[in-house]
Each structure stands twice: as C-alpha cells, then as structure tokens.
C-alpha cells in the first residue's frame, strides 16, 4: 500500500464529517453560482420591463441563495476543520503505535532529538492533507459538473468552454506546476540543510572560530549559503506566484471566450439575449473556488513527502524489533550472563561495545566505571533489552534474551536511566507510572526515601520536567524505581547531580531495599564502591578490568589510577 493510500484510509475513519463537509461545500458553491446567475438574469429581465411580481420572486431567490451560501459556508468550514483535527488526533495515535515498538532501537540509527522533532513536525503537517488536498477537489468537481450541466440547457458551447477552462485550471496547470515545484523544493531543502549545518557550526563554535581568527571567513561562507538558500526560496515563491497568475489568467480568458461566443450566438439569434448576462456572471463566479487549487500541488507534495518520510522511519527494516515472545521461566532473582556480546550504532565509525563477556550472579551488586563514551550506558541498555546485541548472547537465569519478551524483562527491572522523562502533570501522575496501584501513603514514603518530603503529590510538573532541577529529577526517578516491583536494579549514574551528603543517604536507602536483589550501578565516581561485589572497568567499549574492589586496587591498574585521579580533583 502506498503511503498516500494509508493516509487516505486514516482519513476515511471520519466518514460522517467528510460527507457533511463535501455536502455543505457543494451547496455553498452552487448557491454562490446561482446567486450571481440569478442577479444577472434579474437585471436582464428588469431591462425588458417585466411585471413586478416576477422581479420580486427572482429577488427573493437572490436573497435566499445569499443566506444559504453564507450559512453552508460556515457549516463547511466548521465540519471540515473539526474533521481535520480529529484526523490529526488519529494520526498521532497511529504513529505513536507504530513508533512504540521501534523505540529505542531506532536510536541506533537516528539521533533521538532529530528524529522525534521530525516525526512530530511531519505528522502535524499532514493535517493539511484533508483540508487542502483531499476534499476541496471533490467539492470543486461537483460544483463544476452541476454548473456545466445547468449551462448546457442554455448553450452547449458555453458549457463546453467552461469544461475546457475547468480541465486546464484543475488538471493541466497544477500538473505542470507540480513537476517544476518538485525540483525546486528539493533544491530548497538541500540548501536549507547546508545553511543549517553552517549556522549551527558558526553559532556553537563561535568562540573557537573567533580565537582561531576564522570567524569572518566562516561568516562569509554562512552568508553565501544563506543567499543561495534565499535565492532558491525566491525561485520557489516566484513559481507559486507564476502559477497563481497563469491560473487566474486562464479563468479570465475562459470568461472572455464565454462572453465572445455568447455574444456571437445572441447576434446570430442562436441564443436568447436574456441569458447572456447570466452566463457571463456564471463564468465569472464559478472559477472563484479555483484559486485554492493553485496551492493544491504544494500541499499534495508536502503531504506526500511527509508521509513518505514517516514511513521510511516506521517501516525501516534495518531497525530490529523485539522478536522475543517467551516469558521469563525463572522469576527468582536473576543471574545475567553476557557471552562475547558486541554492539554498535549505525553512524558510528567504531564499535560501541566489543566482545563483552561477564557474569552477574544472582543477588550480587556490580558497579561499572569508565570514562565518558566508554560504553557503560550501552551495556546497561543491552541488559534491560532496550537495545539488542548484534553478536554474542545474553542470558537471564540461563534463558536466552532473544526468546524473552522485552516487556517481561522490564516487569522485573527497576530502572533509573541517565535521562529520565517526566510528563506534564503532577508529581503523583509521574510516580504512578511506576506502579499504578500504589497508595498515596506509599508514594509519600517513596518521596521521603529520596529526601523530597517537601514535595506534595499534587505539585505540578511541566513538560519534560522543566520546572525540576537535575537533582530533583534524579531523586524522583529513584523514587519511581523504589515504587516499582522487581528484583533487578539497573541504575545509570543515578546520583550524579546530587551533593555528596544526599547521595550517601539515598544510596543507603537503595542498598537496604535492594539487599536481596541483583543490582547494577554505573557510577560516575569510584569513591563509595568499596562494598560492591564486582567492579567492571570499561574503556573504548571493552572491559579492561573486572574483579572485587580490593583485588583491583591491589593490582594497581586502571581503577587504581582512576581513583588516584579522582583523589586529586579539587572541584
């Protein structure tokens, strides 16, 4: 199924609104044509000194048509916009459903910020599809067919002229225009991409550029790219303007031909002169709704590329989805084993994790340390099946990760990631995510455990938790992990934004709660890891040291040196 067809299927979920939008649109269009036809007829009739009652009938018709037009136009707008936003809502839900199984494996290929922003932008842009691409041509077609049918009773030639004018303005011109527009649009997009890179580099790297005396050169480059972009936009705009002008010129010429042919026919007594003014008025009015058709190809193309881009993402076969179906057989505290596991991101020029082998015994506490970019967080993501190993094997109590459904692992795991998301709502909403059955008392206890007793459950949380400090977010994330059930703790630098004292108290709480559970902790520092059963030291995606704290210290290797370094840090 082509992307556009899929889109149309979503649109058809709102059959009733579509029907009314088309119906009202049609009535409004016909009423408008009728109105002008009637007034043309009225004047001609009046010129021939007809009885007054006939005039009054026609005049009333004119008035009535006027009100009908205004009323149905209002109705059409209301219904079509409501349909548009309902469709948008359906689209959002649909793409949420489609994207859901791909996250976060999709971030192996796309950067999260870029991707999500783009998906949202593309989905929102699809709202134009119904409003500007899908139903207006239907309305237009109906109005034209009826008008041409009506005119053919008076003059077949005039009807044919209107038909030709309609075909040219709705099919020929938009088609030719969209061919050119497509090429220009590509150019515009490419130029924008270039400029965007240039601007980002210039602004974020400004200090460096300045210090290396390259700011001026870079600025000239940027301005030059900007001018190339602007001239492409200029071309795009001019193409639009040209299209609009050509369309309106063709409608003028059509009316002109109607007049000329009408005049010829009247002069030759082949047409009653009474209808000449009416036919001219019809030809002037019927093309009024053509104007929006000028933008039809633009919106059509935008919708098409948006929906194609979206499909490329959600139907990217390179992105694996979870194929595991099985439940975890042994739900006791897990032993997890990595056997020669490798992983890398798509755009990366080196392996993020290579040849990782390790055993995490049931109920033990393991710490992972290493420099930024050494692969610690990726290791954790594999452990909770947020990413899949490309080589090697991971097992949970001897059961292969490939078989186990990821949901089942999440059911068992209490996770604090480096970036934890908080939703628009209240503290309570955000805590309940961890355990929908938790009582207020339990929630308050959890807040108390993470030293956030001063928070009330009804306190508001802004989008992405923007009103919370880094430390508060970390503590709320820990509270969520505490509220959740499960016997595997997975914590990625959970306390990096906390001061030493708070960190100590909270880690103590976790220690108590997790006493019998398996625990993995990525730590930003070595201080405080003395009690861990096992320490893994990573560098460039490899495990370079593994053992107990004391053993590694005695060995005076990497961990020892890191500890020395940490000791020498003042601030």
């Amino acid at each position, binding site marked *: 199924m082509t992307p556009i067809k899929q889109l149309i299927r979503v649109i058809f979920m709102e059959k009733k609104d579509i029907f009314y939008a088309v119906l009202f649109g049609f009535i409004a269009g016909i009423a408008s044509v009728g109105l002008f036809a009637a*007034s043309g007829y009225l*004047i001609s009739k009046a010129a021939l000194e007809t009885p007054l009652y006939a005039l009054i009938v026609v005049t009333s018709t004119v008035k009535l048509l006027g009100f009908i037009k205004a009323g149905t136009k209002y109705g059409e707008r209301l219904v079509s916009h409501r349909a548009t936003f309902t469709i*948008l809502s359906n689209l959002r839900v649909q793409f949420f*459903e489609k994207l859901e199984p791909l996250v976060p494996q999709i971030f192996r290929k796309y950067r999260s910020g870029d991707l999500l922003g783009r998906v949202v932008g593309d989905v929102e842009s699809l709202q134009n599809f119904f409003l500007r691409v899908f139903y207006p041509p239907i309305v237009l077609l109906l109005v034209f067919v009826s008008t041409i049918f009506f005119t053919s009773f008076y003059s077949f030639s005039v009807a044919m002229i209107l038909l030709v004018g309609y075909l040219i303005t709705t099919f020929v011109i938009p088609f030719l225009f969209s061919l050119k527009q497509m090429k220009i649009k590509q150019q515009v997009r490419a130029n924008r991409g270039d400029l965007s890179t240039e601007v980002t580099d210039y*602004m974020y790297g400004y200090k460096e550029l300045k210090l290396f005396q390259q700011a001026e050169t870079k600025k000239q480059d940027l301005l030059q790219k900007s001018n190339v972009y602007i001239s492409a936009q200029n071309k795009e705009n001019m193409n639009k*303007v040209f299209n609009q002008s050509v369309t309106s010129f063709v409608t003028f010429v059509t009316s002109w031909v109607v*007049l000329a042919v009408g*005049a010829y026919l009247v002069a030759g007594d082949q047409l009653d002169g009474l209808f000449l003014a009416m036919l001219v008025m019809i030809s002037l009015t019927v093309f009024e709704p053509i104007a929006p058709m000028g933008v039809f190809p633009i919106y059509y193309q935008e919708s098409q590329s948006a929906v194609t881009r979206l499909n490329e993402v959600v139907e990217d076969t390179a992105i694996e989805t979870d194929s595991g179906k099985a439940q975890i057989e042994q739900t006791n505290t897990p032993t997890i084993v990595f056997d020669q596991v490798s992983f890398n991101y798509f755009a990366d020029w080196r392996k993020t994790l290579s040849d990782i082998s390790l055993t995490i015994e049931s109920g033990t506490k393991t710490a992972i340390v290493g420099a930024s970019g050494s692969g610690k967080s990726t290791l954790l993501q594999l452990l909770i099946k947020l990413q899949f190993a490309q080589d090697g094997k991971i097992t949970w109590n001897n059961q292969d990760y490939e078989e186990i459904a990821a949901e089942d692992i999440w059911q068992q795991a209490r996770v604090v990631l480096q970036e934890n998301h908080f939703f628009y709502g209240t503290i309570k909403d955000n805590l309940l995510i961890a355990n929908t059955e938790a009582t207020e008392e339990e929630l308050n206890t959890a807040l108390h455990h993470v030293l956030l007793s001063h928070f009330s459950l009804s306190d508001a949380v802004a989008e992405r938790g923007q009103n919370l400090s880094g430390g508060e977010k970390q503590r709320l994330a820990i509270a969520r992990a505490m509220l959740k059930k499960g016997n595997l703790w997975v914590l990625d630098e959970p306390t990096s934004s906390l001061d030493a004292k708070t960190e100590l108290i909270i880690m103590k709480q976790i220690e108590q709660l997790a006493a019998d559970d398996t625990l993995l902790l990525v730590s930003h520092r070595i201080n405080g890891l003395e009690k861990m059963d096992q320490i893994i030291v990573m560098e460039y995606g490899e495990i370079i040291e593994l053992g107990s704290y004391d053993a590694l210290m005695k060995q005076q290797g990497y961990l020892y040196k890191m500890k020395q370094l940490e000791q020498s840090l003042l601030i």
Partner: protein
Amino acid sequence: MQRIKHSLRAHKTSLILLLLLTLLLGGAIIVQAYTITLIVNDIFLEGASFSSVIEWLALLLVALTVRSISDYYSKKIGVKIASAVKEETRKELLEQYKHQISVSEKQGVVGEKVSMLLDGVDEMDSFYSQFIPQVMQSAFVPLLTLIIIFTQHVNSGIILMVTAPFIPIFMIVIGIKTQKKSEEKLEQMAAFSGTFLDTLKGLVTLKIFNQTDRKKDELEKSSLGFRDATMEILKIAFTQSFMLEVVSMLSIGLIALEIAFQLVLYDGISFFTAFFVLILVPEFFTALRELGTTFHNGRSSMGATEKVFESFEESVSPVEWGEVELTASDETPTLELANVSFQYEGSDFALKNINIYAAPHEKIAIVGPSGAGKSTLLHLLSGMITAEQGDILINNHSLYAYTENNWLQQISYISQEPYIFSGTFAENIAIGSNQEIDMVEIKLAAQKAGISELIESLPDKYQTYIGEGARGLSSGEKQRVAIARAFIKKPNIVLLDEPTRGLDLQTEKVLQQSTSELQQFGTILTIAHRLHTIKDADKIVFLQDGQIAGIGSHQELIHTLPAYREMVTIQQGGIDNDSN
C-alpha cells in the same frame, strides 16, 4: 513596529512601483467591468452585430491581460522585497549575535539564536512577499471601485457606504466579546500541542514501566482536547466571516433590488449602468473580504517579523580594539591584569579588582569554588569581553590598544567542551591556523596531542567525518583535538580550562604532558581542578566570590589561607596524603 517601517523604507522605489501596479490593477478591473457591460448591452438590448463588438472584446482581452500581469508583477515585487529583507536581516543578526554569544554562557541561549537565524528569518518571508502587496490591493481596489460606482449611480454608492462599515463594526463587536475567551483557549492549546512530542520523548520511560497503553489513551484524549480548544477559536473566525458574508450578501441584494426597481418602475437608470454596477459591487466586497483574511493571516507573520526585530534591541557593548601592532609577536609578552573589574549584565555576580602579573613562560593556576569567576577571568583574557574598570596590560600596553587579530594570534583557548565542527579530523585540527597547513604538520600535532593513535586506527584515518550528524567524540577526545589545534597554532599564551568529569586516563596523561610542552611556546593560565596541576604551577591565584583571596605557591596558601586549606582538605580527606 519602528523596525518594520525602517525595513520598508529601504525599499521605497519598490513600494512606489507596487502602488502604481495596484492602481493599474484597479484600472484594469474597472475597464473589464465596463467592457463586459458594454458588450452585453450592445448585443442584448441594442441588437448590435457581433462584428461591432469585436473591438470591445479586444479591449476586454487587453484589460484582462493587464490585470493578470500587474497582479503578477506586484506579487513579484513582494517576493523580491522579502528576499532582500531576509538577506539583510540574517547579516545584521549575525553582526548583533557576534557580541552576544561571546558573553553568553548558556547553550540554550545559543540554540534560541540558531533557530532565530534559520526559522525566525524564514517566517518573515510571508509578511513581505504576501501581506504587503495584498494590503495594497485590498486597500486601493475597493476605494477605486467605490469611486466609480458613485460616478455611475449614487444610490448604489450610498448603499455601499452605509453597509460596508457594518463589516468592521461586526468584526470589532465579535472581537471584543471573544477576545478573552480566545486568549484562554490559546493557552490551553499551547499546553496541548506539546503533548505529542512530550509523549514521544518519554517513550523509553513509558516502556520500561509498561505504561505505553495508558499513555496512548491520554494522547488521544489530549489531541481531542486540542481539537475542541482550536475549534472554539476557529468558530469565532468563522462567525466573523459568516457575518461578513451576510453583510455583503445583503448589500449586494439590496443594490440589485434597488437597481431592478429603478429599471422597471422609474426608468431611472439604463441597463448599462445597472449591469456595470452589478459587476463592480462584488469586486468591492471581494477585495474588502480579502483585506479581512489578509489581516488575520498577516498577524502571525507580522508577529514573527517583530520577534526577529526585537532581538536587535538587546544591546551588548562590543570589545573595542585599537590599531597598534604587537611588535616581535614571536616573543612571549608579559601579561598583567591591573585592577580589573567586570559584571555580566543583569547578574549579581561581578569580578572585582583583579590584579595578576604573569611573566613570560610562567605557569599560573586559577583555583576556586565554582561560581568564583574563573571562566570569566579567562574570557576577559581572551578578549571576548571587556574589562569595565582597570586594564589588561600586554608588554605594559593596554590590550585594547592592539588590533584584535594581533591578540587572537597570540592565544589558544582550550575549553572543557571544545566545539567540533562538521568536517574531517584533519579539517578540525587544521582550523588551529588561519594559514594552509599540510598533512605532515597535522599528523605531528595529532601525535603530540595523543589522538593520532585513535585516528590512525580508523578506516578513513584523518579524513574520518566528525561533528554534527556523526556520532561524536567523547569529551576527552574532543579535548585532545583542541590540544592538537593548539600545537598547530603555537600560541604565546595558553588559556586552559581543565576538565573535571568523565575523563579517561589517556587524556589525563596527554593533558599533563602537553601542557608542559605548550609551556615552551609561552605563558599558561589554567583553571585547575587537579592537585598536581596546582602544585606544578609557578603561581596559584585563589578566587573567591569574584575576588582574589590570595596568590602564592601551594605551600604558602595552605599556611596562610584558611579557605584554600579547607577546600583542599575536604576534598582530600586530609592534606597529609598529598602534600609530600
């Protein structure tokens, strides 16, 4: 508003041309109506032959062509003005930001400016390319048609004069009644519109808590809420155009009726006048209606334009440089801060009375708690910001007497998070110099910075693409690239912000080695976080709350400065371990 006017003033000739084209357009509309009427009149009432109206048909065709062409050219002028304004604005914005970015520290601020440069400027387009020509047309065409109608038939003109004002009156009445409501709704809409992105961003969190289904329902609910809020606002707009439509319909109907009666009962006017007026009246209302929608649409593009122009209001005084060339620029100069004070605008924090002297090739460590003003000090030295009081002396002359290039040539600044540009490793290292650099030199610099091993291990080696779009380097690697840049530049003064977190041991080793190597080039000022760096320094400057609390060697400060001693001991758990 002032700025918008100003931006238009620069295109005076274009605007005059636009006005002339609009008048031409109006003229063509009138000729069009006139000839149509004439032809229908001659053929229908006078029973004229077809050949007698051929001239008029030709004139009509000319009028139609003129109408299309003048419309095309007036839109073209709009597009042209838009392009010129965008070009100019981007240039001015860059000039403006130049002084702002060097001062601002926050990444968010830079992000805002990036989007202003890209999207902000783009959104200005429709204001100039569509709004301006449309306003002209919508203002002059009704005026012109009204005048013509008056000359033809005064009664119709009066009906128009009486009914047309109802349009703005209705608009205002409805507007006032609903404004408050729509403001409320707008807020609500803003809250809804972010939900989709918010939900997608939280997908990972939702998944690990098995909450995706619940959130999906919420997403649907909020999307429908968004729909209902939007519809409330749209209803107002639709009601307005409904009223407009009704008023114009009534008016047209009234005129048609009045004309018809005049025709039948009193023979007051000719068919010609009646039909002419009847064709012109809709043109009048169409243009008026367009003015309404234009203002409606124009408001958003005008808002965007004003937002861009607002950023010109924030003023920052740029560093003013002199003309003097630093003589013997190969030699490391002496460096002195004499009573230097500085304060960020709108911030309580200030650097006060800073006095530091650095002899050539000295190694100076700047130490102090976070927020003490260490980075501000380096920014002052780099010439990014100007001292408000006091002076920075280079070879006993004010820094600001030298040329900017001359000074920048002297220094290297290695920050905690150096920026990596889109490009290859080689390009990113070569940026250290503003001259052509050959690969031999690049390789040597990379080697000294301890990054050559990593680069050589990659399939594309020095041509490996890094920066935006490629999954980047770790912070330690970025820092080593920055050090390589410094080796290319061979500066006389090195400003270094020692990294604090997430460092690998190799970068640590390289940092220690290379700083001593960079010292051969010249003076080094380091914001120091490591005890060995501090102990290694010739001089330690201890900053506290923007002031120098003490200058001296490690041992001196330990004994004389309690705050310094406290800082070292708390972190170390006793100085005895480290002071030997």
